[in-house]
């Protein structure tokens, strides 16, 4: 790759275009998808609850994005510090853990009781991660069915963890397509110089513009509403564009 200013401009423009287009391509209903995973895991383990928490941007908190079962309503949206608790340890260490009697960890029991109103006896926690990043953690509370011995249950939970990680990775790709395109290219690059150049481009890639994302999502939704709605939306958009051009003159 050349370092010529022209090339850099083209690559930056490409990153900007990808960033703006990504959110439109993103699967809609990804939150519902996470909830469906949580509910399926809960049923598979015959558990009281299952929840999925995602690391915040600054990595200091875990935010519960989806939950099913006991305390689910109070759990979704809840934020807990990432540097404590069973979930925190799983995320930080990259290791799965199952505790049979969490109420004996006084700090954990108090925290959970104060937030969700449901105090579990047993908990399994598994990090959600791949070779590029750690996304968060999936937890199963008070399972009544499973492989009989703990490790079998953890292997089953690993299947749900992989599924959740794929869903989160996909959502992230489209939320930040500009950055991810160059990160992926950097991973595949042969030479150090090329890889570092691509990593710099990834770091500098613009984030999606919220207003543009909102507009494109609206148009996307209209297009799917039906042919009449699409025609009406196209006419309105054209009329607005003609008016805007007139004003610019």
């Amino acid at each position, binding site marked *: 790759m050349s370092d010529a200013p022209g090339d850099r401009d083209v690559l930056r423009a490409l990153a900007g275009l990808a960033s703006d287009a990504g959110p439109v391509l993103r699967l809609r209903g990804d939150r519902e998808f996470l909830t469906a995973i949580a509910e399926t895991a809960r049923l598979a383990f015959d558990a009281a609850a299952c929840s999925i928490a995602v690391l915040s941007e600054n990595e200091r908190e875990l935010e519960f994005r989806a939950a099913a079962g006991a305390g689910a309503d109070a759990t979704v949206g809840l934020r807990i510090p990432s540097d404590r608790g069973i979930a925190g340890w799983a995320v930080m260490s990259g*290791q*799965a*853990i199952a505790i049979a*009697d969490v109420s004996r960890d006084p700090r954990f029991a108090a925290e959970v009781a104060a937030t969700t109103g449901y105090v579990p006896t047993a908990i399994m926690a598994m990090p959600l991660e791949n070779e590029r990043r750690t996304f968060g953690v999936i937890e199963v509370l008070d399972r009544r069915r499973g492989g009989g011995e703990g490790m079998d249950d953890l292997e089953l939970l690993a299947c749900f963890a992989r599924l959740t990680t794929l869903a989160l990775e996909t959502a992230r790709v489209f939320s930040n397509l500009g950055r991810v395109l160059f990160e992926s290219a950097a991973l595949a690059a042969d030479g150090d110089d090329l890889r570092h150049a691509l990593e710099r481009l990834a770091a500098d890639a613009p984030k999606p513009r919220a207003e543009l994302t909102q507009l494109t999502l609206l148009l996307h939704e209209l297009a799917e509403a039906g042919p009449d709605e699409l025609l009406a939306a196209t006419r309105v958009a054209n009329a607005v564009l003609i008016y805007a051009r007139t004003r610019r003159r």
Partner: protein
Amino acid sequence: MRPAWSWQFEATTLPPVLVGMPAEITREWAWEGSSGAGVSVAVIDSGIDASHPAVGSVDGGAVIVVDPDAPGGTRAVEGPHEDLFGHGTACAAIIRHAAPDARLFSLRVLGERLTGKGAAFAHAIRWAIEHGVRVVNMSLSTSRADYFGVFHELADAAYFSGTMLVCALNNVRGPTYPSQFASVFSVAAHSGADPFRFDYNPKPPAEFGAPGIDLEVAWLGSKTIRATGNSFAAPHITGVIARILAKHPRLTPFQMKTVLMALADNATRSGAEG
């Protein structure tokens, strides 16, 4: 003309090597009468609660903090520190049970931001090697591809300096570092409960199996909890290694693997192999 390094094998420069291995390796030879006395063991984890009755004491250590202004982005703050989660205390107590007189060091790397975790983890391993620690327990791992090289280099450095790295494998299939490297002692849980019973797997990366299912382990607040995870299997092997090293301090990492293999429950000297 001689190729590079060949001078090391001249009769005048090549030192004698004490093999110190018997024809038949038995538990009596390996650790009978040993309490792990004097062997330094580092636990890279969430800290150790030195006041927990199952831990007894901690001889030193450091918190590895992320500091963008420090060389490499991390620095070691030496001195006493608490256990943030409880897990490091659980590992320390398991090691203490197998090697009551070992010298325990806590290297806390968890609790900092995840972004710096790999660098802090690497710093902790380097700290252990530089301080001559003989056994390092790591119930944690990273799947991050960008740390492959860093950990490979450190695993080699540990191997050549005689520092034995004991790593828990994680549950998700796919490579994790440094637990999948051939030079480390990689451990997963088996269903046994006897802390001195372990298995050898001839088809790694899970090279050794040790107790890690439904165990009563030490935790915060001088309490215990019942827990499951490969992360509790690793300190069992760490403790056994410390116990053996106290009696046979000259053993190298590859000799130690031979000893553990010979003492594994599934070791056999006759009959068909599995």
